[in-house]
């Protein structure tokens, strides 16, 4: 399955959940947020939420900032 992750075309295993994607990339979910096709997905929905082919996913984290 192919999605766009933070603007870059990315291969993803089928049936990947958001929680799976986040833990795979960040090693945990603390400090992470996700936007799928322009909408913020609530943390509570991540376990059930399965990423679909062609979706635009933004994976956001807390970084240094004033």
């Amino acid at each position, binding site marked *: 399955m192919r999605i766009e992750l*933070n*603007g870059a075309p990315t291969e993803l295993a089928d049936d990947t959940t958001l929680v799976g994607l986040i833990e795979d*990339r*960040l090693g945990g979910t*603390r*400090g*992470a*947020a*996700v*936007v799928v096709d322009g909408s*913020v*997905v*609530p*943390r509570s929905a991540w376990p059930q939420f399965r990423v679909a082919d062609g979706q635009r996913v*933004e*994976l*956001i*984290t*807390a*970084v*240094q*900032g*004033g």
Partner: protein
Amino acid sequence: MADQLTIAGVSLSSRLIMGTGGAPSMQVIDEVLEASGTALCTVAMRRHDAATAGSLIDVIDKRGVRVLPNTAGCRTAAEAVRTAQLAREALETDWVKLEVVADERTLLPDPVELLDAAQLLVADGFTVLPYTNDDPVLARRLQQSGCAAVMPLGSPIGTGLGISNPHNIELIVAEAAEGGVPVILDAGIGTASDAAFAMELGCDGVLLASAVTRAQRPALMAEAMAAAVHAGRAAYLAGRIPRRRHAQASSPTEGMATF
């Protein structure tokens, strides 16, 4: 001197709020958080970058410091609201440092978009701490909109020019005091005396980043800022002497020995 800063009912053990931007490494952020003794620090929300070494949030959590996400980089109310909502999911906090700037050169707040964003976020249940200019009228409007604090600038972000218009800060403090809303001097602090001065003007706290993270010795400057905020607060409470045009002796004028 037991005297705590309270924002939205939460008491903080320090009146110094640290921004984490501008630090050369996670190590420096960790040292700065420790040396500053801060209880609250800001972070920005950005796309995950695999290249970044270490996790900022882990460093902050380990120090037991509360996190305050900001909306830095947003130019419109709509962007700021979405960014705040992202932060709420990411950090499980409804506190947000609201920034809506008009341009990259001055990084000054856009008063119209800022006020819109503040009203929308308050309505959405956020605890809103807006970064604003030093206009007492805009500060009042933000206060009336239900913001949990008002955070006027001393001078533009990162300039280190200190407090350009103390008179405006005093006006903001006087009005916020009536409303029971804390005033945090945010942006423009260059060195310790600036932070002390902010507190002497009656501010309830100081928020700074570059002055510490970009100093030659960040941890030592963090220590300086902690002491300065304490000094300024104590001086404010202690009641300074009035300014006098003419000198006043501090030794007796009577009783000189005669030879």
